[in-house]
């Protein structure tokens, strides 16, 4: 049976911040509404300072809305129990440097009321999931940026939440680390976990999200299913493999013969620089 209660519901959210020198308060979020159903991966995109993080903080009760309402699985965000089923990874997180990776997960697990054998097995499972089993006893202070993001993701998942909120999950991470985080998001999606992420790296959002919202200067300017938003309605793409020049010439001739059709572009599809980088580094890794 499909769940009808939205995982996230933000209704006409407005957030003003007091400013010291100006008389008018700064409006960081202006009448934003978002609805995310369970199992969806929703990406909120926008430039720096557009109100993405503030929207997420309002959803987590870290800031109080000036107007509007936020709820998680039907529970008001300002209530502590709304956080029972949420995992959050803030932008550029720093964890307690004096704790090891394993201790960090143990600490967050205990905060969620998990104890004993259950906590131990959950920590094991998550360390394996984020590929940090080898670094489990190392102090967080010695972790790289990518490792920090991954341990951050693991702590967000400690109590098996049904919703995961990720604020710029790949900010400052190298392509390999970025790929690992993206793979983890795909794994969450497969498990039916709702993901709400924000980023200004559009290509990544396009790759993992099925719903997208574009926020600019605090206002939601466009929202909907990713496929619907990015499809060019009056164009069709045809990608052929091992096509002979004769066949291509024949297709072009057919297009010319047919009235009202225009060949917009012809050429070889290109891989992305990121895919090329990953391919080459993997190849090097295999040879060594």
């Amino acid at each position: 049976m499909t769940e009808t209660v939205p995982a996230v519901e933000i209704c006409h959210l407005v957030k003003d911040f007091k400013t010291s020198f100006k008389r008018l308060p700064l409006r960081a979020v202006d009448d934003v509404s978002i609805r995310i159903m369970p199992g969806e991966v929703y990406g909120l995109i926008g430039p720096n300072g557009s109100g993405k993080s503030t929207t997420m903080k309002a959803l987590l009760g870290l800031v109080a809305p000036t107007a509007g309402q936020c709820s998680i699985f039907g529970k008001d965000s300002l209530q502590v129990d709304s956080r029972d089923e949420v995992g959050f990874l803030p932008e550029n997180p720093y964890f307690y440097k004096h704790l090891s990776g394993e201790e960090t997960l143990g600490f967050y697990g205990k905060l969620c009321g998990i104890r004993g054998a259950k906590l131990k097995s959950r920590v094991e499972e998550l360390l394996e999931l984020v590929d940090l089993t080898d670094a489990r006893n190392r102090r967080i202070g010695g972790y790289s940026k990518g490792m920090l993001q991954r341990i951050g993701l693991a702590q967000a998942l400690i109590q098996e939440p049904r919703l995961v909120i990720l604020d710029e999950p790949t900010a400052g991470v190298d392509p390999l680390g970025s790929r690992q985080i993206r793979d983890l998001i795909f794994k969450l999606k497969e498990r039916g976990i709702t993901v709400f992420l924000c980023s200004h790296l559009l290509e990544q959002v396009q790759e993992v999200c099925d719903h997208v919202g574009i926020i600019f200067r605090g206002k939601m300017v466009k929202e909907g299913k990713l496929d619907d938003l990015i499809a060019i309605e009056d164009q069709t793409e045809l990608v052929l493999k091992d096509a002979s020049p004769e066949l291509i010439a024949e297709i072009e001739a057919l297009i010319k013969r047919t009235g009202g059709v225009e060949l917009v572009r012809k050429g070889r599809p290109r891989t992305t620089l990121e895919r090329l980088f990953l391919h080459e580094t993997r190849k090097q890794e295999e040879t060594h």
Partner: protein
Amino acid sequence: MNIISNIQRIPAHFGRIGVIAHHAFTQLVRMKVFYFLAFFAVILIASNFFNLPQHEGPDATGTHVLTLIKSWSLGAMTLFSVVLSIVATALLLPKDVEDRTLYTILAKPVPRIDYLAGKLLGVLLLVFVSLLIMDLLMTGILQLRTNMVLEQQVAAAVERGWPAGDVAALRTEILNQGPTLSLQGAVLAVFLRATVIASMAMLISTFSSSTLFTTIISFLIYFIGHFQADAREIYLSQGVGTSDGWLAHAISLVVALVLPDFQLFNVIDEVIQGHVMPLLILCKLSLIGLFYFIFYLFASWFIFAEKEF
């Protein structure tokens, strides 16, 4: 229904507070704060070598070396507990905000009061353990020293042909300067004073913007607390007989409520002189400590609950 679910959540509150307190304690221990205990040991040993009994004249009782050990030890305990309470409390909260670790904690089902109580109890646990170790060191050395002084002085008194009654009185006098229950009460009073100071520093750190500000203001209030009772008395005596006498009383009451009167803890000096600390005084100090702990904790919560990150 709501009340029942709140009651059911009480063990969970204690569990979370315990986890945060244990973590704050570990964090401070790993910051190597216990290194100061070595410094304390040096102070204790130094106090022990001043005015050795054999350097004294034949009529001296030798008990003032015991007073000196107590005085130096309790002085060092006061200094360390006050500094630790203020600095550790002032450090923990802003550090979590700055490092954004607070986001990850408050994004879990952790009520803000649990977070504050956990942090405060973590600091108090550290102060308690530090005082316990210092107390054990002081008691051990004081016991050894008392035995030595007792042996020497009793032998000297017998040699001089003192009557048995006088020797017994001398013995009691020396033992009163040694490790007594009152001395343990004085150490507890040092801890209770640290509790009040740490709770006050917690309140300041909820609205302060930096560790430095919290530290300076906390020390200022600590010093003001030593003469606020006298200042209130002078203020009230000036207001007597005038129409605004009730206002003076009301203001004085608010000042007394918000700013702790640290003069009450001067009873520690009496113990150093070998006097007995009445149980009633200790109970009174415990109640004061508990009152300010709860009062400042809830005042901190009142501010922290509205704080945005």
